[in-house]
């Protein structure tokens, strides 16, 4: 290809590019864009590295609240089995609280007769029943774990609950339950771990030890963490 013809083509391309933009940048003179280091509230904070440039990701999948069927299955799966090998589930008058014989229909499970579509809105009714389910299931998990030891436990396999757990063991167990409940693998210094540690500590402090109850102070701490995780939006989003 001759130089003159190449020049003509490139000039055409440059014109085309300029036509696509309000103001065509001059090649080679654009300064790299720098993310601001001072936020609108004048705090100095870390800005994500790619906020100002890089490839533009495409659209994302939407996020919805779990359907009642899925919530029912997920809570039971996370809770594991009791000491007799039977699945732990939300018990309401000896029925599964999420079944249609209990609160399944009230929570919006469609029967395709009177209701044909499941709302995936987290309304007050949903939050109330999820709170009830979480408290019931977490108590069952704690009580069953008290009858087991070590890795066979579902809620506190990494930390003893007899008052001898070290900080490292508590942290390791917090990382474990975050993965078990939410599917997130977090570092020991992650804010989620430190926040849940505070929940655990409050739970432990709320119970006198020894207290003669079925679960120890530490187990009560883990029960609080369990309820917190079951009530987390991250648990209910898919």
């Amino acid at each position, binding site marked *: 290809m001759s*130089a003159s013809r*190449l*020049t003509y*083509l*490139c000039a055409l*391309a*440059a014109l*085309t*590019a300029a036509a*696509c*933009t*309000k103001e*065509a*940048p001059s*090649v*080679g003179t654009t300064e790299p864009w720098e993310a601001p280091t001072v936020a609108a509230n004048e705090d100095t904070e870390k800005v994500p590295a790619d*906020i100002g440039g890089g490839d*533009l*990701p*495409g*659209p*994302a*999948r*939407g*996020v*919805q609240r*779990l359907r009642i*069927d*899925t919530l029912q*299955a*997920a809570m*039971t*799966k*996370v809770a594991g089995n009791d000491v007799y090998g039977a699945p732990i589930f939300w018990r309401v008058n000896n029925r599964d609280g999420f079944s249609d014989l209990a609160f399944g229909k009230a929570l919006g499970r*469609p*029967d*395709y*007769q009177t209701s*044909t*579509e*499941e709302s995936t809105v987290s309304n007050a009714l949903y939050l109330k029943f999820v709170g009830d389910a979480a408290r019931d299931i977490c108590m069952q998990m704690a009580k069953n774990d008290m009858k087991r030891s070590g890795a066979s436990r579902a809620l506190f396999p990494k930390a003893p609950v007899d008052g001898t757990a070290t900080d490292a063991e508590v942290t390791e167990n917090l990382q*474990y339950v975050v*993965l*078990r409940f*939410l*599917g*997130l*693998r977090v570092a020991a210094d992650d804010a989620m771990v430190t926040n849940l540690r505070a929940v655990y500590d409050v739970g432990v402090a709320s119970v006198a030890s020894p207290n003669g109850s079925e679960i120890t102070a530490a187990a009560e701490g883990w029960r609080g963490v369990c309820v917190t995780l079951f009530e987390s939006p991250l648990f209910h989003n*898919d």
Partner: protein
Amino acid sequence: MKSKRHWQALCFALLAAAPSVALADEGEQCFLHRELPVERQLRRLSIDLRGTVPDVAEYDAVAGLSELPDALLDEYLASDAFRVQIRRHHESLLWTNPAPALADVGFSLSTVAYDGSPVYYVPGQGKSALFRGGDGTHTCQNKSQEALGYDPVTGMPITEPMGTDAAGAWSAEGWVEVHPYWEADPAKKVKVCAFDAQTTATYTLPPGDPDAGTHSCDHLLATNKAKSCGCGPELSYCMPAGVVQPLVHAALREQMLRLVDEHTDGKQPYSGLLTTKRVHYNGPLAFYFKYHAQRQTFSRTQNEHQASDGPLPDLAFTDVDTWVAVEREAPHAGLLTLPAFLLRFQTNRGRANRYRIAFLGQYFQPPSTKDTNCAKESDDLTRRCVCRNCHVTLEPIAAYFGQFTEAGSMSLRDFAREYPTRKACAQGIAPQNAGWCDRHYVAIPDDTDPDLRPYTLKALQYADDEHPEIKPHFEAGPADLVKADLESGRFHEVATEHLFSYLMKREPNLDPTTSDYEGDALAKIAADFRVHDDIRQAVRDLVKLPAYRRMP
């Protein structure tokens, strides 16, 4: 040479820079979508394809990976949990959980308590009056029929006078012990009033009777005709609704879901869901269609088994978990002609509308502008103001379902299309019955002699020169409706869009003027889907889209 390279470099830089500058300037959007951590990707996939979350061991198995392995996706797609999710997806499209009343007083069994134990009887007043006289409110008395005996000539139970009520004298028989069909244990028996427990299969009307001849006791029209007709062997002709009806309802739902299973497991084409002639029966369903369906009064759903429904398998009512596949004949077309669909959408218009929504993604909407130049009072909805906007489209589609009775699942394929008079219409069934004629036929107005009006099947009421599509659509049946949408590719396009919404939790962006237009990707998946006709492969293609791995 050096100069040439300089120009080439400049040219490349210009062309590379142009698109991104244009996109940023044009969209002015803040894209913050991030790839999910692999554990959350796993959780998302597991919830969508298995309906539950992974366990810790499953999270550990993907630790450190940047994306989920294909083998894991294949494992999920092959799992039984995925089959259940796909069932649920189709239920949400079709709403098929029918619950019509399947028994009425003519053959339902009630109980009266004698000495603390139940005695079964049929509560229909007409039948009771035929058996015992009086006003039809009486049952048998609390004694064994063995103590009273049977008439040596007629074989019917001997009764004892019990008194007189407002309608006259009445008498009552005793009870007998019978093993009922709904009990699996052959040794278990229940008490039944002796008249109701009669096992006679047929009754004969004498010469001179308008319906002279022998007829079946197991039919609606026998209910008040023959004193010798009871509930048949093992009470087969009658139904304790509380025991039998829930099992039949559950089986109707399961029958459709089994068809979904067959066409979503990757072994048979997905489109066969709407074309197959195959159908599955278990014990309660086969028993219902053999003995009970023909006993329903005309005011309720009509589900009588017809030759086009194929042979009923020989199953006992208690064979709840035994399913047998049989082949139906035309005009059946996949799930569109299963009782679960026909009874959930009981009018041909309702059936056509649900078909459009579920398989064509089309919804009827009223017009936003005033309708003019139309008939204000016409009975013909394709001409009537406002109505016509939808009905001009709906009526020809509804005609495809015309060979199935409305408010019922009965095939009308073998029914006469027309009778010349009302009397001839009533004689379309034996014993003759005007109610039967009114249930399925409608008079064609004739100004000359109203008594000689011809009667036509209701679905053909408007099959005239002004509506030329109705007759051929009626005769072709739903199979032809489906055929056109399969050939056009629309069926697979809409199925792909539904799956996209199910998996992505949002509608696809089909606006080609936007930067995140998804129509091309969807069209590619739909085109492939049309070729392989495997819903699992379509799901695989959709969850492998980059968007599925991103958080909003």
